[in-house]
C-alpha cells in the first residue's frame, strides 16, 4: 500500500500557494493565517513522515502509477524525511519571524512565494529522479529569487540579479549534465542509473564521468563551494534577513544532492566515478573554509559577516561529504542539521538587532534598547555558528574531525577546520564586541534644535523573539540529545549506503507492475 503522505510536503504548499496568491492577495491577514496554518500542518506531516521513515523501510511513491524507471518516483528514506522536517521547522520559524517583524508586508506575494519555496525544497529532497530534481531546482530558484528581492532596494536588486544569473547558469549546466547522462545511460531514475552504471564498461565511461563531474559542479553551485560560491555572500547579505535565514536550507539542497547522487547513482565503489568527490570536492571544501573564515574576519558589516560564516560552515560540511565514508556522512548529516539552524538563528537575530540599530556597519553606535537580551542571543547564536560548546556546533565539529582521520585528510582537514574556527571566533568576538559593547554615548540633546518627542523604542514582542529562541533551543536539544540524533544520522547513512536496498525498493516493483 503506497502512502500518499509522501507527496503532501510538495502538494500541500503547491495548492496553498496559488490560493494565497490569488484569493488572498488583497488581504494580508488571511494570507498570514493560511500560510502559518499550512506550515504548521507541513511540520506535522514531516514529523509523521520522519517517524514513518525511522522504521527503516525505503518508501517509494510511483507518480502517475507508472513503474520506475519509466515514471517519476518519490523516495522517502530517513535522509529525505529528516531534511524535509528540517525544512518545515525552519520554515515555520522564519515565517513567524517574518510576520512578527512585518517583513511580509514590505512587498507583494510574500506568502505565496514562501509556500512555493517550501514546495520546491521539499520536492528536491523527496525526488528519486534526476530530471525531476532539475525541475525542483527551478522551482526553488525562481521562488527564492522572488523572496530574495522581496521589498526591493538598489543593492538588493543588484545582488538578486547576480544570484539569479549565476544560478541560471548553474541550471543550464544541469541540463547539459542531464543530457550527457541520459545519452550515456538512457535513464533518469537515480536507482536505474545506479543499476545501469554497474553494468557499464569503465573503459567506455568517459561521458559518464563528465556527467558525474558536471552534476557535482551544479550541486556545488547550490552548496556554495569554491570556486562557484561567489554568489552567496552578496545574496545572503542583501536578502531580507528572514529570507536569508530560510536560505540556510538552500545550500543544503546542494549538499544533499551530492550526498544522494554520489552515493546512490555514482556511488563509492563505482570504478569510473568514485574518485571525483575525494579528488575535487575535498580541496574545494578546504578553500571554502578558508574563504569563509577570512570573510568573517574582514567583514565590515554584520550581514556579510554572517553570510561568510555560512560559506565557512558549508566548507566544513562538504569536507565531511567529500570523504564519502559512512562515518563521515553521518557526521556531515549531524553538522548539516546544526549548521542550517545556526545560520538561520544568526540571520533572524541580526534582523532584530538591525531593526534597532542605525545601519549594519560594524562601527560604534549609541546603545540600543534591550541590548542585554539581544547580546545574550547573539552570543548563543555565535557560539553555535563558530562551533563552541555547549550548543551542537561543537559536537558537530568533533564528529567531523573524528571522521577524517585518513592520512591524506587529517592534516589538511583538521588544520582547515580548527584554524578556520579560530579565525571565525575572533571575527565574531570583534563584531559582537563592536555591536553590543562598544557604544557611543547617546547624542546629547541639541539645544538649538526644536524639541522633539524621543519615542521610547518599541520592546520586542514575544513573536519576534520566539523563532530565534526556539531555534537556539533546538540547537541546545541537539547537543543534549546528540546520542539519539546521531543514531538517526547513522541509520540514515547506513540506508543511503545500502545501494542494493535502494535499487530494490525503487525498481523492485517493476515485476509486480
Amino acid at each position, binding site marked *: 500500500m503506497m502512502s500518499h503522505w509522501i507527496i503532501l510536503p510538495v502538494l500541500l504548499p503547491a495548492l496553498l500557494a496559488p490560493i494565497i496568491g490569488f484569493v488572498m492577495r488583497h488581504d494580508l491577514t488571511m494570507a498570514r493565517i493560511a500560510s502559518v496554518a499550512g506550515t504548521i500542518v507541513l511540520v506535522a506531516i514531516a514529523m509523521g513522515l520522519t517517524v514513518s521513515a525511522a522504521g527503516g523501510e525505503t518508501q517509494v511513491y510511483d507518480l502517475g502509477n507508472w513503474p520506475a524507471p519509466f515514471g517519476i518516483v518519490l523516495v522517502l528514506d530517513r535522509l529525505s524525511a529528516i531534511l524535509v522536517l528540517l525544512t518545515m521547522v525552519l520554515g515555520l520559524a522564519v515565517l513567524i519571524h517574518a510576520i512578527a517583524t512585518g517583513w511580509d508586508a514590505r512587498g507583494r506575494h*510574500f506568502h505565496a512565494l514562501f509556500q512555493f519555496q517550501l514546495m520546491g525544497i521539499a520536492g528536491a529532497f523527496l525526488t528519486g529522479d534526476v530530471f525531476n530534481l532539475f*525541475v525542483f531546482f527551478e522551482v526553488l530558484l525562481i521562488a527564492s529569487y522572488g523572496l530574495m528581492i522581496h521589498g526591493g532596494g538598489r543593492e538588493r536588486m543588484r545582488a538578486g540579479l547576480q544570484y539569479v544569473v549565476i544560478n541560471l547558469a548553474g541550471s543550464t549546466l544541469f541540463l547539459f549534465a542531464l543530457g550527457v547522462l541520459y545519452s550515456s545511460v538512457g535513464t533518469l531514475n537515480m536507482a536505474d542509473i545506479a543499476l545501469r552504471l554497474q553494468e557499464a564498461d569503465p573503459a567506455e565511461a568517459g561521458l559518464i564521468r563528465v556527467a558525474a563531474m558536471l552534476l557535482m559542479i551544479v550541486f556545488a553551485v547550490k552548496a556554495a563551494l569554491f570556486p562557484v560560491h561567489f554568489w552567496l555572500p552578496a545574496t545572503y547579505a542583501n536578502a531580507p534577513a528572514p529570507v536569508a535565514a530560510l536560505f540556510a536550507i538552500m545550500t543544503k539542497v546542494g549538499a544533499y544532492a551530492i550526498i544522494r547522487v554520489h552515493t546512490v547513482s555514482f556511488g563509492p565503489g563505482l570504478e569510473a566515478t568514485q574518485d571525483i568527490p575525494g579528488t575535487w570536492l575535498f580541496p574545494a571544501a578546504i578553500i571554502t573554509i578558508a574563504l569563509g573564515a577570512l570573510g568573517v574576519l574582514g567583514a565590515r558589516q554584520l550581514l556579510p559577516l554572517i553570510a561568510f560564516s555560512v560559506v565557512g560552515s558549508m566548507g566544513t560540511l562538504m569536507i565531511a561529504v567529500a570523504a564519502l565514508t559512512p562515518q563521515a556522512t553521518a557526521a556531515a548529516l549531524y553538522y548539516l542539521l546544526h549548521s542550517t539552524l545556526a545560520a538561520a538563528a544568526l540571520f533572524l537575530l541580526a534582523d532584530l538587532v538591525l531593526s534597532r540599530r542605525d545601519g549594519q556597519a560594524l562601527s560604534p553606535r549609541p546603545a540600543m534598547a534591550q541590548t542585554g537580551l539581544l547580546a545574550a542571543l547573539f552570543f548563543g547564536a555565535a557560539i553555535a555558528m563558530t562551533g563552541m560548546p555547549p550548543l551542537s556546533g561543537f559536537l558537530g565539529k568533533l*564528529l567531523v574531525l573524528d571522521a577524517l582521520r585518513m592520512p591524506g585528510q587529517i592534516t589538511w582537514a583538521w588544520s582547515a577546520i580548527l584554524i578556520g574556527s579560530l579565525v571565525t571566533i575572533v571575527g565574531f568576538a570583534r563584531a559582537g564586541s563592536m555591536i553590543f*559593547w562598544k557604544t557611543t554615548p547617546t547624542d546629547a540633546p541639541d539645544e538649538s534644535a526644536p524639541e522633539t518627542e524621543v519615542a521610547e523604542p518599541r520592546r520586542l514582542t514575544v513573536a519576534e523573539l520566539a523563532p530565534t529562541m526556539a531555534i537556539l533551543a533546538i540547537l541546545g536539544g541537539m547537543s543534549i540529545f546528540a546520542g539519539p540524533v*546521531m543514531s538517526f544520522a547513522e541509520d540514515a547513512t547506513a540506508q543511503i549506503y545500502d545501494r542494493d536496498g535502494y535499487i530494490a525498493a525503487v525498481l523492485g516493483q517493476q515485476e509486480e507492475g
Partner: protein
Amino acid sequence: MTDSSNFLVIIALLPFLGALLPGVMIRAGRTACAWFTAFPTALALLLLLVLAPAVMRGETIHAEIEWLPQLGLTASFMLDGLSLLFAGMILGIGLLITLYARFYLSGNDPMGVFFTYLLLFQGAMLGIVLSDNILLLLIFWELTSLSSFLLIGFWSHLPEGRQGARMALAVTGAGGLAMIGGMLILGDIAGSYKISEILQAGDAIRASDWYIPALILILLGAFTKSAQFPFHFWLPHAMAAPTPVSAYLHSATMVKAGVFLMARMWPALAGTDAWFYIVATTGLVTMVIGALIALFKDDLKALLAFSTVSHLGLLTMLLGIGTPFAAVVAVFHIINHLTFKAALFMTAGIIDHETGTRDINRLGGLRRLMPVTFVIGTIAALSMAGIPLFNGFLSKEMMLDAAHDTTWAGNPLIVAVLATVGALLSVAYSLRFIWHVFFGPVRDDYPSKPHDPPFGMWAGPAFLATLVVVIGIVPAAIVGPLVAVAGGAVIGDAEMPYYSLKIWHGVNAALFMSIIAVVGGLVFLALHGGLNRIWNALPRPEAKAIFDWIVAQVAALSRRVTEASHNGSISRYLAILIVASVALGAVAFGGSGLATPSREMLPVSLPVLAGWLMLIVATGSIVVMHHHRFRALVLIGIIGLMISFGFVFLSAPDLALTQISVETVTIMLLLLALHFMPKSTPRESSGLLKLRDGVIAIAAGGGVGALAYAFMLRDVDTISGYHLENSYTGGGGTNVVNVILVDFRGYDTYGEIIVLGIAGFVIYALMDTLLNGPAARRLRNTDYAQNRSRDRHPLMMVVATRVMMPIAVMVGVYIFLRGHNQPGGGFVAGLVISIALLMQYMASGFAWTQNRQRVEYHALIGIGALVAGLTGAAAWLYNSPFLTSLYGYVELPPIEEFGIGTAFLFDLGVFMTVLGAVMLMLYSLSRIARYAGEPINVDPMDYDPKQAIVDEKGEV
C-alpha cells in the same frame, strides 16, 4: 548509579542550574542576589565534603551518563584526590569571591548579570576538574574560555575590558582548538576517551608515533590557558576585569586549568624527554620572565598578574621535571599559591576600592590608615616571598630542592640557578608590594580618603591569610592528607616519593638557595629606583601592541582578499564558473573512454546547410552587434526560428511548435520591455577582457558541441522505448511527447507550470515594489525622447488583429484539443492564445484592452495551478498515486467519438497557468508604461473613421 555518583553529577550541574538564579533574584536586591549565588556554590561544596572522606580513603568516585557514544563522548565524571583538591578550591574560593563581590561592585554594576557569569564560569571550571572524559573536558575547557570572555569584558564600556576579553578569548580559544586536535589523537592512540583508561595506557601512548603531535597540541592548550611564555601576555590584560574576577580567575581557577590538565595527564604523558624539555623549560622561562616583569609593574594588579604568571611557570616547571617528588611539590604549591594569591588580589581590590588608585607610586603609608588590610596583605605577600612561618616558604623550599636535583641537557646547575633567580625576584616584588604600599609616610594626596573596608569585604582575605599562617606552621596536620591523596592522584601508579611537610628540613642546598633569594631580593628592593630607571630605558617588546598589530594585519588582509575576490562582478563569477566546468569536465573525460560510434552521419541537404549558415551568421552578428539591443533581439528571433526548423528537420514537431510559440511570446514581451531601456548597452569590457571572454566562450561552446557530437553518434538503450509502447495503451494518447508531458512525467510538467506561475507572481511583486519606490520617480522623470509614432494604434493593425483574434483563439483551442494525439497541447495552446491577446494589447493599448478583459491574471495562474494539482490529487479517490490518469471515450454527436481523460483536465491547468503568467507579465510591463507617462487611450485606435463619420454628421 550509587548515591555518591548521583552526588557527583549534581555537584557538576549545580553551578549551571544556579546560574539561573542571580538574574532573577537581583530584583529582590543585591544582598538577596549574592545569597542566591552563594547557595548553589555552598550546596555543591557541602556535597563535595560529603564525598570527601571516601576520596581521602583513596577511593575514586565515578559517574557516567551516556551522551554521544558514536564519538566516545560520555558525560562521565570522576572524583579522585586531584579533582577533590581543585573542586574544593573552585567552590571554596567561589564562596569567598561571592561575598567579596557583593561589597566590591558598585550600585551601577549589573550584579545579577555578574553573578550569572560567575556561576557559569564556576560550573565550567568545576566541569574541567571533574571530567572523566577528555572530550567532556574539552567542552568545559571551551566553556571557561567563553565565560571568562564575558567576565573579563564585564565592564564593557572600558576599551581595556573589551580588548582584554577578546585577547583572552583569542589566545585561550586558539589553545583550546589545538587541544581538540590533541585530544582526538590521544583518544585514538589510547583507544578510549575516558581519562581513567587513558591514564592506564601511558606506555602505549608514549610509544606511539602520534605521541609528539598529541603532546604538542595538548600542551598548546595548557600553556595558553595557564599563561606560559610566550602566551603569557593575555593574562595581565585580563586584569581589566573587576577585581573579584581577577582574584577568582587568576588564583584558583582559569589559569590553573592548564596546570590541572598537565597534572591530570601526568601519568599518561609525562616522563619522556619531549615532556621534560618542553614543559620544564617553558615553566622555568615563564617563572623568571614573569617575576622580572612583576618587579617593575606599578599597577598593583599588574604586579600580581605577572607574579601569577611566574608562579604558574613554577608549577609548570615542577610538573615538567617529571619526578613524582616534583609533582607532589606542585600539588602542595597549588594550595599555597591559591591561599596567598587570592588574598593578595582581594587586598589589591580593597586598596583600589578605598583609595581610588592601584598605582604604587601614588600609594604608601597605608599601614596606619588601613591596619586590617595591612595585616592581611603583609601575611599574604610574605608567603608569596617565601618567608618562613608562612606556607609559601614550605613549597618554595621543596621547589628549590627539586630544581637542585634537576639536570638540564647535561648541565646540573642551570635549573637550580634560574629557580633561585626566580625565587629572588619573587622575594623582591613581594616585599615591594608590602613596602611601597603600606610603609613609608602617610600621604595627603590619595584620590579618596583611605580606611578599612566593611567586614564583608575583608572577611574573605582574612580567612585566607589565616590559612596561610596555619598551613605555614603546621602543614602536615592541615593539608598533609590532602597533598598526599591529590599528589597520589597526579603521579598515578608511580611510587609515592618521600617528602615531609615541615618547616625545618635541616641545612641543605635548598636552604642556601633560599637565603640567597631572600637576601638578593632585599638588595633588589633597595636598588629598585635605579633598576626601574634602567628597566624603563630598555627597549621591550610590548605584547599587546604586537598582538593587536597581528590581528589588525590579518583582518586587513582578510578584508583585502575577500573584497578583491568577491567584487560583485557577474561576468567574472560566470567566467570562473564556466572555466571550472570546462576544465573539470575535460579532466573528468580524461581524453578517452568513448564507445565506438554506432550511427552514420546524415547527409547535409541544402535547406539544412542554409539554416545552419543562418544560425552561424546570426550568432556571429550578435557578438558584433549586441550593444544595439533592438538588433540583438531581432537576431535572437532568427536563431530561435532556426532552432525550430532544426527540430522540424529532426522530426520533433512538438518541440518545434513549442519553440516557435515561446520564441514569439518572448520576443514580443522583450520588445515591449525594450521601450524602457536605453537603446544600446554600455561598453564596459576592455579589449583584454573581451579576448578572455571570447576564449572562454569558445571553449565552453566547443565543449558542449563536442559532448553533443559524442553522444549523437552513439546509440543507447533508453527508457523511451517503454514510453512509445505504453503511450496509447496506458496513457490514452498517440502523441507520446504529450503523454510524457501530462502523464508519464506529468509531475515535471506540474513543477514547470508552477515555475511559470511563480515567475508571474515574482514579476508582479517586483513591479509593485519598483513602482512604489524611487524607481517610479525616475521613470516619471525620464524623458523618453524617442520618436514616437503619431499613430500609435494604427487602423490597419487594429482591424487586422481583431480579425485575427477569433482565428487565433480557434487555433489555440484546436491545438489544445488535439494535443494528446497530435503535436500540440496545453502549453503551446496557452502560448498561442497569449499571442492572440498580446496582439490586441499591442494594437489598441493596454488600458483599452484591459477594460474588455474579465478574467484576472492572478486568477488564471491560481486556478490553473489548482486545477492541475487537484486533477492529480483526484487519483486518490480511486486509490491511485498522484497524477494517475483515467481516460475514456465519449461520443458526442455530431462530433466523432473522442477520448477524454483526466490528462485533459491537467492540460487545462497547464494552459491556464501559461496564459495567466504571460498576461501577468504583460500587465506588469503596461504598469511601467503608465508610470512612464504613456497616455491612456479609451478608444481602440487613435483615429477612428467611424467616429469621424459621426462627427461629420454631428456637424451637419
